[in-house]
């Protein structure tokens, strides 16, 4: 046991002394989450808006005036017929339509509530959310100024996202980045670190020593398990505190299932190391077998539903797809464990499969 602990310590030293490894371990996750994070929380400016004013009263004029004056919006046109909206959107440069209902002011005064409809082009879901919230806040300000007792008056902006009603993609960068980073660190880094020992010849020394092969492999994997876990926490913390991405579900369940995903990735890394004899081939396999499918076929960047059937089928063997689904469901929808049982079982099965293949392939006796 003491020998084993010493061995793990050595593994940590390898990691902490290698500048490049440290950059990959901690630089990449932070940079990536920042890039994705800021890309989606980008400020908006001069968004083209069309307006259908059925009210034509004081309040609607005031809101229109405020929108026009704001640097975020630009009124592209005033329309009369709601059927025209579609055509404007299809041209592509108009992102929002604001529709004031008839007798807005009268309704407000009488019933204390009225609605303004916002229709948004949600192809870019993130921008659409932003536009919606900016518009809503302008409407609120206007109402607050107008009525001395704004608590009693409510304008309910009703918004509808066109083309992407479920808002897929808004916070998708978080599950996607988590999957990518964990795969990268767990699978790629372990496979490289194991093949490195093979390449340098130190693996032989270790195999001749009284350490058992399983101890060697577990010893090499444990540090990456910890570091991956720390990374998962960093990513979640950054997205929660910096980018206000909500965590609706159970945090501990999310972490527990992340650990499962890390284990799966580690066993995948071990399997890769048994298939390749040099660091370079481990790296190539990792990039082509892990990173690209994780980015392209997991639903991280391209929605799986829009893919051709063949690719949809193929996406089922990409572990990240299932993990992303877990994170999305727990984090953004807030479901319980029972709704992610299928994904959990699939990841667990993959984990067992990779370990099995590794054990079979692991050449204890380096022929």
């Amino acid at each position, binding site marked *: 046991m003491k020998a084993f602990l010493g061995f793990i*310590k050595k593994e940590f*030293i390898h990691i902490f002394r290698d500048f490049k490894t440290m950059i990959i371990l901690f630089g990449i996750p932070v940079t990536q989450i920042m890039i994705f994070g800021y890309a989606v929380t980008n400020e908006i400016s001069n968004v083209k808006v069309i307006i259908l004013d059925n009210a034509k009263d004081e309040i609607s004029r005031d809101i229109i005036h405020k929108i026009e004056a704001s640097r975020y919006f630009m009124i592209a046109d005033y329309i009369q017929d709601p059927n025209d909206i579609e055509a404007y959107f299809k041209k592509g440069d108009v992102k929002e339509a604001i529709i004031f209902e008839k007798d807005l002011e009268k309704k407000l005064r009488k019933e204390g509530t009225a609605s303004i409809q916002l229709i948004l082009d949600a192809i870019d879901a993130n921008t659409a959310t932003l536009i919606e919230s900016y518009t809503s806040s302008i409407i609120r300000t206007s109402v607050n100024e107008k009525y001395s007792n704004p608590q009693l008056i409510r304008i309910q902006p009703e918004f509808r996202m066109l083309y992407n009603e479920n808002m897929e993609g808004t916070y998708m960068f978080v599950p996607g980045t988590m999957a990518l980073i964990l795969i990268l660190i767990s699978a790629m880094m372990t496979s490289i670190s194991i093949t490195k020992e093979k390449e340098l010849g130190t693996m*032989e020394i270790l195999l001749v*020593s009284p350490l058992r092969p399983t101890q060697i492999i577990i010893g090499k994997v444990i540090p990456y398990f910890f570091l991956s876990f720390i990374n998962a926490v960093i990513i979640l913390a950054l997205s929660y505190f910096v980018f206000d991405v909500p965590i609706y579900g159970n945090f501990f369940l999310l972490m527990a299932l992340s650990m499962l995903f890390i284990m799966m990735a580690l066993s995948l890394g071990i399997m890769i190391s048994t298939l390749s004899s040099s660091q370079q081939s481990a790296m190539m396999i990792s990039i082509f077998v892990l990173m690209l499918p994780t980015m392209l076929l997991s639903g991280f960047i391209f929605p799986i539903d829009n893919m051709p059937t063949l690719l949809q089928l193929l996406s089922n063997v990409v572990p990240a797809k299932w993990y992303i689904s877990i994170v999305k469901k727990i984090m953004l929808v807030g479901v319980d464990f029972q709704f992610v049982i299928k994904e959990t079982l699939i990841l667990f099965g993959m984990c067992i499969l990779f370990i099995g293949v590794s054990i079979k392939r692991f050449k204890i*006796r380096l022929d």
Partner: protein
Amino acid sequence: MKDAERIIKVRKLYKKFGSFTANKDLNFDVYKGEIFGFLGANGAGKTTAMKILCGLSKPTSGEVKIANYDIYTQTNEIKKNIGYMSQKFSLYEDLTIKENIRLFGGIYGLSKSEIEKRGKELIKHLELEGAKDKLIKDIPLGWKQKLAFSIAVLHEPDIVFLDEPTGGVDPITRRQFWKLIYEAAGKGVTIFVTTHYMDEAEYCNRLSIMVDGEIVALDDPLSLIKQYKSSNMDEVFLKLVRKI
């Protein structure tokens, strides 16, 4: 020598990879405290045989006993009682001298105080006091090789296997290295060494020469030179290899 304690026993050892026979009917004994040279051209099968003796590879057939432990069933005991240094460099480059000592001492189950004590002696003996906190990659190759050997025998194994330990090292360092080997042998450690430097071969107590997977000669260097009517080991080796 014959009445000394037998530490390696090999009988009818065969190793086949498919239809290729890497080791063919190997038979030899090595005795305690002996420096046993294992010679052969590249591809003659010496690395294969050595891997079998170290427990890295299983023979196809034959009997092999290391320190009286059976190679098929008692590899764990064997591993505790042997040291190993390969032609590829065997220390961790990004660890310091002290850290390497601690790591390998720990792997071989030495206690902390023992590692501390033996490590100190080792560093003093190799005159590395000024460099003990340097990373291995920052010290010269000659030092590394000597250090790797000293660490391979740190746990005082019965046998140490050296696979071309002096590859790429200058002659002066090589001589210093052999001084270390003699010291270890003097303490009763059996040395099993492969080499292709013939001047080194002459330092061994006994030599075996392998050609195409078979041992074609086995004796002490002087007898071999006499037997093959040569003036040095180089000639003996060439005669044996060319004959086939």
